[in-house]
Each structure stands twice: as C-alpha cells, then as structure tokens.
C-alpha cells in the first residue's frame, strides 16, 4: 500500500500507473482496509477519491489507510413496509474526512449522533462495502 500511495494519482501518468480513484478505493476495501486521499499541497483529507484536491486544486494526492475510528455525524433509519428499518449514517473519520455508511450490530433507530464507531468490511453481492460498528470510547467493540 505504501508503494501505491507513493505513486499518487495526481498526474496523467500517475492515473495510468495507479489506476482510477474508484478502483484504488475498492482495492483497499478488498484487503479489509479503508483508503482515503491526503492532499500533498494543503494536507486536506479527501473523500470520495478524485484526481484533484477539491480544497486547493492540487493534483498531487497521496493514498493513506484510515485508522477506521470515527464518530456518527448524522443518522437516519429508513423504514420499509415489509421489513425492519435500515440505518444510514454520515461518519466523521478521525483523519478529517466524512463518508456515508451504516452502523452494524445495533437496531437502526438506536444509532445516535455522537456515537463512537469503528470501520469494518462486509461483502455484498461479491463487492466489499465499508460499514461501521459501535465501540466504547476506549475502542472496545
């Protein structure tokens, strides 16, 4: 992963060498890891993955692996006529980026804003999907 990070995706040859941002993100997930980009120019954490920094415009973006620790920023339970509601959240990761996900192992309505969560991966229809599980403040699942 370090090698891949060094290549970046910022310049034309980098894109060719490292692959499309969405593909790199997926390859991290397949290895059970949450990848995001860090701008080499302004140090902003960038998510979703792109070919330029939406803060400063730099095309020099390095891939990093997130520690996977975050806090629920917003939450909703989506209701269905024929089965239990499912949860959709926005999670703020400690590295400074936000992503949509869901919280596993807890009923949809019991997810709360401010809850500490940790990254995990689930496979759905053959594709890895980033999810989160509740943790205590000391990090225990």
């Amino acid at each position, binding site marked *: 992963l370090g090698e891949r990070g060094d290549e970046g995706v910022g310049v034309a040859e980098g894109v060719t060498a490292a692959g499309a941002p*969405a593909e790199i993100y997926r390859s991290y997930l397949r290895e059970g890891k949450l990848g995001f980009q860090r701008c080499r120019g302004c140090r902003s954490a960038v*998510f*979703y993955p792109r070919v330029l920094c939406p803060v400063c415009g730099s095309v020099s973006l390095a891939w990093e692996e997130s520690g996977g620790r975050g806090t629920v*920023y*917003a*939450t*909703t*339970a*989506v*209701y269905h006529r024929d089965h239990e*509601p*499912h949860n*959709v*959240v*926005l999670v703020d990761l400690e590295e400074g980026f*936000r*992503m*949509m*996900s*869901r919280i596993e192992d807890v009923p949809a*309505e019991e997810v709360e*804003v*401010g809850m500490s969560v940790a990254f995990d991966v689930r496979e*759905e229809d053959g*594709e890895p*999907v980033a999810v989160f599980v509740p943790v205590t403040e000391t990090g225990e699942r």
Partner: protein
Amino acid sequence: MSLRGGAAVVGVAESDLGEVGGGFTPLDLIGQATSRALEDAGLEKEDVDGLFSASAYYHMPTLSVGEYLGIRPRYSDATNMGGSSFVSHLFHAASAIEAGLCEVALIAYGSTQRSASGRLVSGSEALPYEAPYEPRYPVSAYALAASRHMYEYGTTREQLAEVAVAAREWAKLNPKAFMRDDLSVEDVIGSRMVSSPLSVLDCCLVTDGGGAALVTSAERARDLARPPVYLLGAGEAHWHRNISQMPDLTTSAAAESGPRAYEMAGLGPSDMDVVVLYDAFTINTVLFLEDLGFCEKGEGGPFVSGGRISPGGKLVVNTNGGGLSYNHPGMYGLLLIVEAVRQLRGECGERQVADANTALVHGNGGVLSSQVTAILGSEEAL
C-alpha cells in the same frame, strides 16, 4: 451594472394541479400553463423569444417545450439544479433581458408524477460512495440534516411538525391546495415514519402540476395587462450535490444566496412582506429561515412554533400552503414565483397579505444542494 428593477414578471399561471388523470403529459400541462400565463400578461406566443425550462422527464427540456408550444427562441436556457432551477431561470432571464439577448422570456414546467406513478420522478444518479447504503432519495438526505440540527440545537419533532401545521393552516385559505383538512402536531408525529426523524407528513406532496411565468423588461412591462412585479435582487449558490459532501448539514448555501439577493435589492429580511420558501420537507423551512436571516442559526425550531408562521403569525411564510399542503409536482420552484407574484398583485383572496410590496422567493434543489433566492417587489418597492 445591477439587475435591480430591470426586469419584471408580467404573467403567471398554474396548469391544472393535483391529479390531472391518466394520459396527460408534462408537456400538456406546460401548454395549459403557458396559454394561461400569456393571457394573464396580455402577450402573444409570438412575443416570446427566450425559453427557460428544466425537467425530470425531458432530457433536452427547452427543445421539447419549444417544439410543443411552437416557440423558436433566440435565447434558450435549460439549467437544471433541481427544484430551485426556475428561480434560477428568473435570475438568468433578467440577466439575458438586461443584456438585450431576449425581450420576453417564458419559464415553464410541468409534471404528471402523481397520475403516472404516484412517486417522485427523478433523473438523479446514485453516487457509488452512497448507493450501497440505500438512502431513500431524497428524503434520507433531509432526514440526516434534521438529525444533526436536532443534535446541535435541540430542535424537536414537535417543532418540525409545527411547520407542516402552519402550511396546512395557510392551505385551508387556498382553494387550489391539495390538502385542506385539519392537521395537528400530533397527527404529524403519529404519521408513518419514512426516514427518521421525518414521517410522511414531514414530506411534501406528490402531485401533478405545472406553471409558467413570463418575464420582460421593466419598460415593456409597464405597457402590459397586469401590474409588473419587479425582480429587485437575486443570488444563487451551491456547495455540493450529494448529502455526504455537504460541509455542515445545519447550514445550507442559502446563507450565501440570500445575502447576494439582499445586497442587490438593497433590502434585508426585516423588509420582506411575504416569504415563499421551498418546503420539500419540514426541516427546509427551519433551515432557510435561519440561513436567510429571519432568525439566528439554531433558533428555527422555536421560531416556527406557536403559530408564528401560521396565518396571523409573526412572519408570513408560504401563503399557498407550500409543497407540504398545496402542491408539489416533483420540482416546485416555479410555483413559488407564481404565489409571490399573486401576493404582490393582491390577487390572493382569503390568504392575501395586506399591503404586500416585497416578497422573498427561495428555491432549493437536489439534497439541500442548490439554493437560489430572488426578491420581488411591486412598483412601490422599486
């Protein structure tokens, strides 16, 4: 160069609304509304040389509308940023008129979503980084914003419900409103949950409907049938498309579009006689009242409570009953303009606001994504 007062809305109309019945197309409703708006203005179809439209049905909306109506515009603008597009079209039309690129602009919209499917028709694509989590588009995005507003400011479901109740009280005064029966805070909170904390009565209606607005230069407007309603100010802003990319879920880009419009108009929130906000969901009204300066950030919940935005309340908001109780045909922005113009022309019957000379129209599009504010005024406000 300022656009202030350079252009005016000279004709407005709704198409048939509510549920028009099977077989009608969105273009049929656009045809109805256009014909009525031309009659309202005392203009002929041949006078129209600028065409503005957005649609979830037609990939190239101004082409489809122009063809159906038999209009060959010299200026064509199909800007689509969701439900706010038509307020943006008003802004863009005034700019084009000021620049001499067209003289009479038609802004038109129609939808048959209720008769066709009963569901919101949306051409929105799913973001691959959101799709796996199956948010219900667009309600879950607004629900996420509501959850954050509740967390940061203690806003309650009761306060959100007050928005729906106020809209219903206004709708009772509007014969064209789709929902006019009694509604209580308890009814809203007890209704079927859709995407928490928003229940079905926190959500706008799904109706058929359309509208048309005609815009021309202030000079030409003075010779027409109806009193001109001048565009005094306008501003637009957007910061994101997808809800996961919205920087702060409790502050929309209305915090920029509003000040831009106020600055152009030389007016502020306290000068507004009528406020017409895009209330796709109850949280919208709370957010936009804050972002547009009618109350402090975080105070929207208390501000809308106790009947303060109901008929006879402190601030006149959404006199037609809004998207929540009047009509919401997929994209609602054009109907905001229709109501503001009618209030400023004094045509609103039971719900008419006395001495209304200024109106703020605020359009929202996507998932709190695009925000467009326009300030309209009567001759007296010029």
